[in-house]
C-alpha cells in the first residue's frame, strides 16, 4: 500500500487504510472514494513564504512540479527554505533529495502551504554524512480541505546531528512521517512536534527511529492542543536493535484536549533488544490545570487571557528547543496567533 502508487496508478485501492496497523487512525482509503485527477500546473502567484527572509535559497514546488535536490558540500553551511505548495483539487506528488556532506550544516525551513481540496504527497530522502548537522523546521499549513502526506527517510552517520521540529494545524487528513536510521556512534537525534488543531482538522505525527549501533542519542517531545472536533494522532516508535548498546532514548507526548468532541490517539512504542540502554517515555492527555487557571485569574487575568497564556506555555516548551533563533520566533508567533484566536 502506498500513496505514491495510488497517485501514479490513479487507484484508490492502493491507498493505506485502517486495516494497515500504521495507518489505523489515518484511514485514507476510507476517506477518498475516487482518486482526484492529476493536478494541473499552477501559474499564479504563490507569494512569499514565512522563512524566505532567513535563507539564501528558496525552493518552491507547486502541485508536485519539479524535483528538488539540496546538496551541501562537506564543511559548508546552507540556509534553505523548501516550500511545498498545493493549489486546487487535484492529486500530485513531489520528491526531494537532500545530501549533507561531512561536517556540513543545513538549516532547512520547510513549509506546506495549501489551498483547495487536493491530495498531496511529498517524499524526502535526507542523508547526513559523518558529523553533518541539520536543523529541519517544518511549518505545515495545509488547507482544511486538503489531504497531505509527507514522508521523510532520514539516514544518519556517526557524530551527525539531526534536529527536527514539526509545527502543524493539520488538514482534512494530514500525515507527517519521519523515519530515521540511527547508526549510534554519538550521533544525536531530536524529533519534536507541536500540533494545534481546531474545527475538524486531523494531524498525524508518526516517527520511527531505529538504533543500529552503540552510543546513540534520541530525544523526542511532542505536544498538542486540540479543540472542537479535531483529532490528533501521535505514533512514536523507537527500536533499539541488538547490539545498539548504551543507547539513550527519551520520548514524550503530551496533549491538551479542550473540547468533549476532540480526540487524541497516541501510541508510543519502545522496542529494546540491546543491553545497558536508557529509555524513557511519557504520555499524557488531559485538560488545562484548573488550579493554575484560577491562580492566574486571581492575579487579574481574564479567563481567555489565562487560558492562552497557559496553553502557549504548554507548547512553548517544545518551541524553546528550536536552535535557530529567528525560526524559533516564527514558530512562536504562529502558535501565539493560533492560540489567542
Amino acid at each position, binding site marked *: 500500500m502506498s500513496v505514491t502508487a495510488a497517485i501514479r496508478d490513479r487507484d484508490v485501492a492502493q491507498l493505506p487504510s485502517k486495516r494497515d496497523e500504521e495507518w489505523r487512525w489515518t484511514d485514507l482509503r476510507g476517506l477518498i472514494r475516487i482518486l482526484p485527477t492529476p493536478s494541473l500546473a499552477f501559474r499564479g502567484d504563490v507569494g512569499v513564504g514565512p522563512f524566505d527572509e532567513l535563507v539564501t535559497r528558496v525552493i518552491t514546488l507547486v502541485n508536485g512540479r519539479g524535483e528538488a535536490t539540496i546538496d551541501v558540500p562537506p564543511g559548508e553551511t546552507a540556509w534553505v527554505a523548501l516550500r511545498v505548495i498545493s493549489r486546487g483539487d487535484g492529486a500530485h506528488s513531489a520528491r526531494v533529495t537532500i545530501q549533507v556532506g561531512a561536517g556540513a550544516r543545513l538549516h532547512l525551513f520547510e513549509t506546506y502551504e495549501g489551498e483547495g481540496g487536493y491530495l498531496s504527497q511529498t517524499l524526502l530522502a535526507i542523508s547526513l554524512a559523518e558529523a553533518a548537522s541539520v536543523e529541519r523546521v517544518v511549518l505545515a499549513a495545509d488547507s482544511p480541505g486538503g489531504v497531505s502526506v509527507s514522508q521523510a527517510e532520514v539516514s544518519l552517520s556517526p557524530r551527525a546531528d539531526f534536529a527536527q521540529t514539526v509545527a502543524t494545524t493539520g488538514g482534512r487528513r494530514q500525515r507527517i512521517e519521519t523515519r530515521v536510521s540511527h547508526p549510534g556512534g554519538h550521533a544525536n537525534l531530536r524529533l519534536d512536534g507541536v500540533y494545534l488543531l481546531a474545527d475538524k482538522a486531523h494531524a498525524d505525527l508518526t516517527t520511527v527511529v531505529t538504533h543500529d549501533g552503540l552510543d546513540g542519542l534520541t530525544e523526542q517531545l511532542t505536544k498538542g492542543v486540540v479543540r472542537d472536533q479535531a483529532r490528533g494522532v501521535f505514533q512514536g516508535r523507537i527500536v533499539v536493535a541488538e547490539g545498539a548498546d548504551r543507547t539513550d532514548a527519551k520520548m514524550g507526548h503530551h496533549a491538551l484536549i479542550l473540547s468533549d468532541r476532540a480526540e487524541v490517539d497516541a501510541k508510543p512504542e519502545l522496542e529494546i533488544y540491546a543491553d545497558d540502554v536508557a529509555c524513557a517515555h511519557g504520555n499524557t492527555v488531559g485538560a488545562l490545570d484548573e488550579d493554575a487557571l484560577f*491562580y492566574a485569574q*486571581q*492575579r*487579574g487575568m481574564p*479567563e481567555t487571557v489565562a487560558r492562552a497564556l497557559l496553553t502557549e*506555555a504548554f507548547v512553548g516548551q517544545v518551541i524553546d528547543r528550536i536552535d535557530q533563533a529567528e525560526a524559533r520566533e516564527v514558530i512562536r508567533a504562529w502558535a501565539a496567533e493560533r492560540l489567542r484566536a
Partner: protein
Amino acid sequence: MSMLKVENLHATVDGKKILKGLTLEVPAGEVHAIMGPNGAGKSTLSYVLTGRAGYEVTGGTATLDGEDLLALAPNERAARGVFLSFQYPLEIPGVPALTFIRTALNAQRRARGEDEIAAPAFLKLAREKAAALKIDFEMLKRALNVGFSGGEKKRMEILQMAMLSPRFLILDETDSGLDIDALRIVSEGVNALRSPDRAMLVITHYQRLLDYIKPDRVHVLAGGRIVASGGPELALELEAGGYERYEKAAA
C-alpha cells in the same frame, strides 16, 4: 465605612456546608487576623471572597467598598484590588515569573481603564521589589514557582502583591512552610504594604505570624462562623488555651 463587609455568609463545597452565617467587617487601614482550628472554613472564606469555582455561595453578602464582590468574576475582583496570597502557590511551567506578573498587571490596568505599564518601568519596579524581598532577579526569569522551595514560593507571592499593589489583601496561612528568617522577610514585605487605604485579612492557625504582622483585631472562626472577636490579646489567649472551647461553642 468598612472596606470589606461580609454579612451572614453561607457557602458550600461539594454540597457540604462550610460557612454557616459568617459576619465580618474590615475597615480601611486595619489588619484583621482570622484564627481557627483546622476545618473551620478559613481557606473556604478566602476562596469564596476571590471567586474560586466549586465554592458556592448559598446565602449572605460580601461587599468591597459597597460593591457586591460575589457578582464579579475572579479577575474583576483582582482588578478592584483583591489579592489572595495562596497557602500553596501554584507552579506555572513554561511561564517566566516576570511574564506572569506583567500579564496580570497589564490585565488589571486595562480593566481599570489605565494604560499598560511600559517595559522599562516594569523591570525597574520588579528589580526594586525583588531586592527588598531578597529575591535574586535571575529567579524571575525562570518559570514561576517551578522547583522553588516553600519559602521561595511565599516570597514570590509577596513580590506579586507588591507589584500588583492591591487594596484588600488576604494572606492564607502565609507562615506555613517558612523558617524564621523567611518569616521575617515575608512579614517585612507585608508590613511595608500597610497603609491607611489598604486593609488586610491574615488567616492563620498559629499565633506566631502575628508576632510579626501585628493585627488590629483578631477573630475566631469555628464551625463556619465568627464565634469571638477581640484585640491582639485574643491571639495570645488562643495560643495558651487552644480552640477547644470555641469549637464546643460552634457545635
